[in-house]
């Protein structure tokens, strides 16, 4: 009977469950709330947890689970009795010190907004600036390598190699050379060619490669109409627009793609806003190339207007269809208006003789594409 009376003070000793963080054994222990929390297993020396070190661990509702910073990190005390839990809680001043508070959340929000603002600034101002500054500095051999890579790709897409009819090729070379001389491009490695595809388009690749597609050639009715298009592409080369675009696109998609990677949803918004930024950026480049084309045509004593008419014939009116804010090129009617303003009577010799023009039209052989 005397044994029982020593365990009797039920106010200070309570049964509960303890995991010592060393083994997974479920230990039935007695709790004693003295100057520290005493956790005593039958027949063992009690473990003492200082109240200030006790922290709340995650648990289901209805169970108070405690950890202690000065005990093994995974040691856990589980209290299921509400009254005892309240009593222990009252003793532990730092119980919830480690939890994320509202202030903590506000801090996260603040830092994220700061990070986002800085990234947006880099995308809007930093990357374009870097692209403008870096593009002219890219060494010619590097530019040429990138151009080579792109050319291989282009030829893979359009299947065959450039059109080779000798007379047509001579005429095309003459045309491009006249434009090039007027442009003051001294790039001796510059190549140009006609690609046998029905798409009416033309493009310039880094390292001085200008391609005109057969579709455009077929739609052109005079050398002047055609000449404006390669002149425009030469403008891109002169302004290093390819390299600028490459650095710009690479930089922005890299920043946005990595940082906002899998952010469900918001990445699409960022993508949308990016394409707006990019479109205006490339619209600027296109307008610059147009200016350049106008200058070349004037230097050659020809009018830039026919080229704009050719473009208009191909695209038709563009305004009113969809979001003009997302268009990468200026609207064709705007370009036509601009080039019409720059229209001057021809003062120089024709760019190609009639015979040369006919030869150029037949550069890809008889009609088959």
């Amino acid at each position, binding site marked *: 009977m005397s044994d029982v009376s020593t365990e009797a003070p039920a106010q200070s000793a309570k049964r509960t469950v303890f995991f010592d963080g060393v083994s997974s*054994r479920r230990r039935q222990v007695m709790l004693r709330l003295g100057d520290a929390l005493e956790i005593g297993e039958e027949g063992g020396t009690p473990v003492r947890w200082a109240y200030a070190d006790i922290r709340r661990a995650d648990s289901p509702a209805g169970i108070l689970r405690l950890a202690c910073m000065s005990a093994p990190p995974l040691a*856990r005390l589980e209290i299921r009795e509400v009254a005892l839990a309240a009593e222990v809680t009252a003793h532990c001043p730092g119980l919830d010190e480690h939890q994320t508070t509202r202030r903590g959340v506000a801090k996260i929000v603040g830092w994220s907004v700061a990070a986002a603002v800085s990234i947006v600034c880099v995308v809007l101002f930093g990357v374009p600036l870097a692209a403008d500054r870096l593009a002219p500095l890219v060494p010619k051999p590097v530019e040429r390598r990138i151009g080579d890579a792109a050319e291989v790709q282009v030829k893979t897409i359009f299947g065959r190699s450039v059109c080779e009819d000798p007379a047509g090729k001579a005429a095309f070379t003459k045309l491009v050379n006249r434009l090039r001389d007027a442009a003051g491009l001294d790039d001796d490695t510059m190549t140009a060619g006609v690609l046998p595809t029905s798409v009416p388009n033309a493009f310039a690749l880094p390292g001085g490669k200008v391609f005109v597609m057969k579709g455009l050639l077929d739609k052109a009715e005079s050398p002047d109409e055609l000449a404006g298009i390669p002149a425009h592409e030469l403008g891109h080369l002169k302004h290093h627009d390819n390299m600028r675009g490459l650095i710009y696109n690479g930089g922005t998609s890299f920043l946005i793609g990595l940082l906002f990677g899998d952010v469900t*949803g918001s990445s699409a918004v960022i993508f949308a806003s990016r394409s707006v930024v990019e479109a205006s950026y490339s619209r600027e480049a296109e307008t610059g190339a147009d200016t350049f084309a106008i200058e070349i045509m004037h230097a050659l004593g020809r009018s830039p207007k026919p080229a704009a008419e050719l473009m208009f014939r191909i695209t038709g009116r563009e305004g009113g269809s969809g979001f*003009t804010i997302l268009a990468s090129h200026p609207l064709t009617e*705007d370009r036509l208006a601009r080039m019409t303003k720059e229209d001057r009577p021809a003062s120089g010799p024709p760019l190609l003789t009639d015979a040369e023009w006919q030869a150029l039209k037949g550069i890809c052989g008889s009609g088959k594409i």
Partner: protein
Amino acid sequence: MNDLQWAPIGPPQPIPPPLPPARVDFSGDRSEFRKLVTEGAMLELVTFGFYRFWLVTDIRRHLWSNTAIDGDAVEYTGRAKELLIGFLFALAILVPIYLAYFLVGIEFERWQGFASTPLFISFYAFGQFAIFRARRYRLTRTVWRGVRCWMDGSGSAYSVRAMLWGLLVFLTLGLALPWREASLERYKMQHTHFGGLRGDFEADGWTFFKRGWWLWLLSPIALIIFPLAPFFYAQFKAREWRWWLDGIRIGGVSLSSNLPTNAFHGLYWKAIGWWLLLSVLFGLYVAGAAGLVAAAGVSIVGPDAIARSIPLLSMMVIGYFALALALNVVMRMYLQHDIWVTVLETLEVHNIAAAADVRGSGELASALGEGFADGLDVAGF
């Protein structure tokens, strides 16, 4: 003292019947979880997604701590800051790799058009590595009865296996998938430990194949009659889950599940229903916004079209944010929380006594793997 001697010394007691399997109970409150993910989704949008580390951690803490095996709840000890640091480290490693990828790609393209495509596969391999390491992170943060799970094994060895099996699955048009899953899971489970107990995976590819081959056979039909696809997918997932759970062993402890094959139909259809409803609402909103702008007499055509499109554009952005937020919540409710609960309800743990006194061991793994998985946009467990 006399009391102890009353028991007669008779014939040996018959062996007690095996203990009934231990249950796994989920005690979480669904509305609490809804509140958690709703607030989390809003914070995620306000913080441009950076809150995802905290939200993912909170979701895991909720799911883990409300899951009780044999009466004792599991605990997730991972913290969001670890994920953030892991992500930043992963970025620091991925940035040079992306650049190198770009430069090598150019050289390949010079040699042959689109020759750089295979380089993309290297990112897939890296993704497999990330999946393995992410699982290791999650396991080392999983604690039950004061002992943590942990993993050894090598992420790169796993990645090589995953790639080779992936090639085989590709060559057999998906037929080898069950054996791929069995082999990869065996590798992962054999390197999984709970304290001193070593895991294993005893399910084989053949069993999985027998349970799901007809789904593989019928999958082309789902491509044509697409409303069938969710049924097929739900069936597949349910069979996969059950097969996976039945195969898991940790020391002498084994799992079994009687998950019915139609268990997920409702969940997937609810998610799709919400998705449709929200899409329709978004469509109406966009139409309404455009109508409003048109009614206000603002034309989006003309020389200063850019400035004039801004009100409509910003209204659409706001609407899109709301849509993304709502979809986020729907996905997490049905496809994370509800699947978790559905699966746990069917789970039984046999011979849990084998885990009654296990010594703790194993080191914590870093969250770098989760960072890679995040940066590369791969998911998997």
